[in-house]
C-alpha cells in the first residue's frame, strides 16, 4: 500500500486521453462505415430485389367472378337466370364466440343443428376476414326476423349476392340440371385459377355439359392489403404509385335450348303422378323438343344449398326424382322394335310383304314344348307383315326372327342407334343393350361356355330378354324411322350467344351414319303399318289415333318387368304396382312431312296403347298446333 498518492502528471494524462479518443474515433468511423456500406448494399444494389418483395407483400390479386350465362328455351323464354338474393354471412374475426353464435343461429332456425360443426370448421379454415356463407338465400320473413336480432350477432349479417334461379322449378329440371357449391372434387377437375372467384359450378344437365360456355372468364383486380391480408383503400396514403392492374370478368355465353317450354309443360302434365319419361325430337335435325323425367325435383334447392336432411330426402326417395330416366333409364323396348325388325327382315329377305303366318296364340321351337306366348291368347289367325305390325302380332316376329338371326338383328338395330350412346349433350347417358352372340361371350363369366340359345333370339324379337334402351334412344329411332333411315345426333343446345356482342352461334345438325336400307318401298310399307297402328280400325292404338286432324304413325310396346310362368296368366290386378308391365309408345307426325318424333315410357303403366299412347298424342297435338290452350 502506498502511503502517499502519486503525483498526477496532467500533461501526460491529457496526451494519453487524446490518444484514446482518437483511437475511439477511428473505431466509430469504421463502424459507421460498416452501417453505411450495408445501407448502400440494401438501398442501391439490392433495391430492385427489395422493391419486388415489398410489392409482393402488399399487392394481392382478387378474382372477379364472371356472371354465368343465361339459359333460354327455343322461343327465348328464360329457364335459368341470376337473381340477387340475400345471403347470410359470417365474418370469423368479428365473431366473439363462434360456437355460441352458431348455436343461437340454429335456435332461430336460420341454420340447421347438424350443420353447426361444418360451419365452425369452415370458419376456422379460411382467412379470418373472409366471409363464410351460412345461407345462400334468405326469405323475406327470415330477413326481417334476423334484422331485429342483428345486434345480438356481431360479425353475422346478410349481403346481396347473385344466385342462380330456375323460374320454372321442376319443369325441365333434368334437362337444365342445376349448379351447386364447388366441391373438392370439382376443383380437381376444373382449373383452380379460372374458378378463383366462383362459388358454384354446373352439376348435371345443360349446366354441367356446357360449363365451359356458361361460366365465362374470371377477371381480376389487384388490391393493396396490409400485413394481415385485409384490403386497404387504395387511394388513401398514395400507396398505389405503382399502377394496379385490372381485368374485367367476361360473362359466360347465353344458351338457347331447342326445348319448347310449352311442349315440356304438356308432356310433364301428361306424366303427372306417374314415373316415366317423355322425349320429343325434331326428326329433321335432332333437336330435343321436350325431355321429361318424372318425378322431378326443384333445382333451386341445389343452387341455394340444402341441408343434409333435405338432400337425404331427395337421394333416398323410392321414386328416385334425381334420376334422369330419359337418358339414364334402361328399359326393355318390347314391341317398339318390331318396325325396325320388319325392315331388317325385308332387307335380308327373311320375309316379304305377302308372306303369311298362322298365329294360334303361341309359338314353339321345333323339337321343344316351350310355348312363346302371343300377347293375344286366342291368336291373330292368318297374318301378314302389315297386320303383324299394326296388331303387334308376336308370333309373326318369333317366326321371322329365326330367319334374320340374332346377328342380323344386332346389325340393323345397331344401325338405328340402339346399343350405343346417341351423343346427346347431356352428361351420363346410358347406352342400352342390343345383344349378340359376341356380346354374350363377353358379358358373362365362364366365357367359353356362353352360347347363344335359339330361344333367346325369339324373345329378343319382341324387345325382351337382354335388350335395353333409353327413352332418348327410343325417340331417336322413331325420328330415324320418320326420316327413312337418316339419323341426326340429338342435341339440346340450339344456339349460344355472346351477351356482349350479341353474336349467335347456331348448332349445326350433325348427320350420323344412316340405316342401310335403300329400298324406299320397304320404308313406305313399314311406315304405312305404323300409320295403321294409330289410324286403322284394327290398330293397337286406334283409340288414340282415330279422328285426329292429322296423319300420324306409331307403335305400342308393353315390356315385362316380371316373368310369368308357363301356363300362368298375367293378371294386372294381381301384380303389385311396381311389378306391372312398363307401358311404352313411340310415334311421329305428320305422316308425310314428319316434324316431331316422340317416345313415351310409363313405368308400370301396364299397357303401351292405353296409357302411353295418349301421352304421345297430347305432345304431338301441342307441337303441331292442335293442343288445348295452356
Amino acid at each position, binding site marked *: 500500500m502506498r502511503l502517499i*498518492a*502519486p*503525483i*498526477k*502528471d*496532467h500533461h501526460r*494524462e491529457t496526451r*494519453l*486521453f*487524446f490518444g*484514446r*479518443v482518437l483511437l*475511439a*474515433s477511428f473505431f*466509430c468511423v469504421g*463502424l*459507421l462505415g*460498416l*452501417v*453505411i456500406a*450495408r*445501407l*448502400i448494399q*440494401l*438501398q*442501391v444494389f*439490392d*433495391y430492385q*430485389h*427489395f*422493391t419486388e*418483395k*415489398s410489392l409482393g*407483400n*402488399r399487392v394481392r390479386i382478387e378474382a372477379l367472378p364472371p356472371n354465368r350465362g343465361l339459359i333460354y328455351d327455343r322461343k327465348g323464354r328464360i329457364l335459368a337466370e341470376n337473381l340477387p338474393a340475400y345471403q347470410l354471412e359470417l365474418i370469423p374475426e368479428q365473431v366473439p364466440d363462434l360456437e355460441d353464435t352458431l348455436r343461437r343461429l340454429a335456435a332461430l332456425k336460420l341454420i340447421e343443428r347438424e350443420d353447426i360443426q361444418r360451419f365452425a370448421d369452415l370458419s376456422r379454415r379460411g382467412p379470418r376476414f373472409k366471409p363464410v356463407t351460412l345461407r345462400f338465400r334468405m326469405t323475406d320473413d327470415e330477413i326481417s326476423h334476423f334484422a331485429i336480432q342483428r345486434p345480438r350477432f356481431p360479425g353475422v349479417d346478410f349481403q346481396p349476392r347473385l344466385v342462380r334461379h330456375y323460374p320454372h322449378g321442376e319443369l325441365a329440371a333434368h334437362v337444365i340440371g342445376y349448379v351447386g357449391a364447388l366441391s373438392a372434387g370439382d376443383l380437381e377437375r376444373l382449373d383452380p385459377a379460372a374458378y378463383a372467384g366462383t362459388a358454384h359450378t354446373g352439376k348435371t344437365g345443360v349446366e354441367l355439359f356446357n360449363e365451359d360456355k356458361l361460366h365465362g372468364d374470371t377477371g381480376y383486380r389487384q388490391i*393493396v*392489403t*396490409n*400485413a*394481415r391480408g385485409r384490403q*386497404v383503400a387504395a387511394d388513401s*396514403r*398514395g*400507396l398505389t*404509385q405503382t399502377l394496379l392492374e385490372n381485368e374485367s370478368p367476361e360473362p359466360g355465353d347465353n344458351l338457347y335450348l331447342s326445348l319448347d317450354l310449352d311442349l315440356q309443360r304438356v308432356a310433364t302434365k301428361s306424366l303427372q303422378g306417374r314415373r316415366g319419361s317423355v322425349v320429343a325430337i325434331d326428326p329433321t335435325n335432332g333437336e330435343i323438343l321436350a325431355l321429361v323425367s318424372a318425378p322431378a325435383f326443384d333445382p333451386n334447392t341445389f343452387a341455394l344449398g340444402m341441408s343434409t336432411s333435405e338432400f337425404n330426402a331427395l337421394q333416398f326417395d323410392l321414386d328416385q326424382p334425381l334420376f334422369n330416366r330419359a337418358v339414364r333409364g334402361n328399359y326393355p323396348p318390347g314391341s317398339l322394335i318390331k318396325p325396325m325388325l320388319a325392315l331388317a327382315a325385308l332387307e335380308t329377305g327373311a320375309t316379304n310383304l305377302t308372306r303369311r303366318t298362322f298365329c294360334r296364340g303361341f309359338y314353339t321351337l321345333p323339337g321343344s314344348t316351350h310355348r312363346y306366348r302371343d300377347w293375344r291368347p286366342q291368336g291373330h289367325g292368318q297374318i301378314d307383315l302389315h297386320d303383324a305390325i299394326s296388331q303387334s302380332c308376336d308370333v309373326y316376329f318369333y317366326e321371322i326372327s329365326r330367319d334374320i338371326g340374332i346377328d342380323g338383328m344386332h346389325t340393323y338395330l345397331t344401325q338405328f342407334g340402339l346399343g350405343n350412346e346417341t351423343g346427346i349433350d347431356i352428361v351420363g347417358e346410358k347406352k342400352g343393350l342390343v345383344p349378340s352372340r359376341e356380346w354374350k361371350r363377353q358379358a358373362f363369366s365362364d366365357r367359353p361356355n356362353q352360347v347363344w340359345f335359339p330361344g333367346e333370339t325369339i324373345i329378343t324379337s319382341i324387345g325382351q330378354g337382354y335388350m335395353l334402351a333409353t327413352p332418348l334412344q327410343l325417340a331417336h329411332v322413331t325420328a330415324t324411322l320418320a326420316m327413312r333411315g337418316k339419323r341426326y345426333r340429338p342435341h339440346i343446345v340450339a344456339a349460344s350467344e355472346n351477351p356482349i356482342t350479341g353474336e349467335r352461334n347456331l348448332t349445326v345438325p350433325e348427320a350420323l351414319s344412316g340405316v342401310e336400307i335403300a329400298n324406299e318401298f320397304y320404308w313406305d310399307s313399314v311406315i304405312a303399318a305404323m300409320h295403321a297402328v294409330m289410324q286403322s280400325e284394327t290398330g293397337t292404338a286406334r283409340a288414340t289415333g282415330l279422328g285426329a286432324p292429322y296423319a300420324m304413325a306409331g307403335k305400342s310396346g308393353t315390356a315385362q318387368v316380371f316373368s310369368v310362368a308357363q301356363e300362368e296368366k298375367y293378371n294386372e290386378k294381381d301384380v303389385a304396382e311396381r311389378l306391372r308391365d312398363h307401358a311404352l309408345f313411340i310415334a311421329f307426325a305428320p305422316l308425310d312431312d314428319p316434324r316431331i318424333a316422340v317416345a313415351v315410357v310409363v313405368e308400370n303403366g301396364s299397357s303401351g296403347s292405353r296409357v302411353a299412347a295418349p301421352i304421345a298424342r297430347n305432345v304431338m297435338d301441342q307441337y303441331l298446333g292442335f293442343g288445348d290452350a295452356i
Partner: protein
Amino acid sequence: MRFSGTEELFERRTLPLGDMARFLRHVHIDGPLLSGLLLICGLGLVVLYSAVGENMDLWLQQCVRLGVGLVALFVVAQVPPGVMRRWTPWGYAAGLALLALVLLRGEIGQGAQRWLDFGIRFQPSEIMKLAVPMVAAWYLHDRQLPPRGAQLLVIGLFIAVPTLMIGAQPDLGTAILIALAGMLVVVLAGMSFRLMILLGLMSVPGAWLLWRFMHEYQQQRVLMLLNPDSDPLGAGYNIIQSKIAIGSGGLFGKGWTNGSQAQLEFLPERDTDFIFAVMGEELGLFGVLSLLGLYMFVVARGLFIAIQARDTFARLLAGSISLTFFVYVFVNTAMVTGLVPVVGIPLPLVSFGGTSMVTLMAGFGILMSIHTHRKLVPQ
C-alpha cells in the same frame, strides 16, 4: 438586463451570433451540441409522425417527452461538474438500492421486471446508464492514470454489480450497454492494450457461459441473425421485413407517410426499435445518411468537449457519454439492417418512448455542464 453602458456599445460591434453564444454560455448551454440534438429530434419527430400512423395523440406525447428531456438537459447543465463528482457515490448507491427494489418487488412489465412505480413509472436501470460511468470516472479522478491492478478490479466490481442485477431482471441489452459505458471509461483512462486483449480472449469462454444463462428468446435472437430466412414468419420475420423496408426505399425513399412496409403493418415495432427502417423506406438513403450525419456531428462534438475538459472526471465522463451514444446509434442501425442480432435498443432521440429520452438528455446536460463550467486555468 446584464449589459449596460459601454459594454453594450462594445457588444453592438460584434456579430449577432457572438451575442447568442455569450448568452448560451451564460446559461451553460453548448450551442453546436444543442443545434445537433434539436435537428435530430426534429427529424425524429417528422419520421415518428409517419411511424405512429399519423396518430396525433401519440405524436404529441412524444413532443411532451422531448420537452421534459430538454428541461432535464437544461437543469443538469446548471450543475457544475465538481458538484456532480461529489454526489456521484450517493447517486450510484441510490441506483443500486432501487435496482434491488426492482428485483424484490418489481412490477411485471413486458415479461420482465424493470419498472418501479412512484406515481410515474420509471426504470432504475436508466439511472445506472449515467451512474456507472460516473462512478468509474469518480474513482479514477484522484488516481494516477493509466489505471492498473487493484484499481481495475475495484472498477470492475462497480460495473459488475449493477450489470448483473439488470441482467437478472432480465434486460440483457441494457445490462451490456451499461457495462460498456463503464468499460469505456477505463479504456479512455488508458488501460493497457495487453490487458484488453487478454480480457477479449477471456470473453470467449465468458460468452459461452453467458449463452448458458441466456433465456431461450435471447438465444433465439442471436440464432436468428445467423439465418433470418430459416423461419420467415417466426423469429426472423422482423429482420426480413425491416430489410425489405429499407431496401425498397432506394435512394430517395417512397415518400413521407407513403412507406407500404411501415404503413401496412408489415414492419413490426415500427415506432420503437425499427423506426430507422421506416425512415429508410420513406426517406431513402439520403434521408438516413442525413440522420447518421447529424448523429456523427453530436458524437464528434461530445468527443471535442471531452478533449477540452479540464479534469479527469469530466473528460472520462464526457468521453464515455459520447461514445455510449454512438454505440446506441450503431447497435440500433446495425440491428435494423441485419448486421447484429435484435437486442431491443431504441434509436436514440427518435424512437417512441419516455425514460431513455430523459436519460439521454440528462447525459447531454452533463456534457454541456462540463463544457460551460470550464475555468480558463487548469485546476
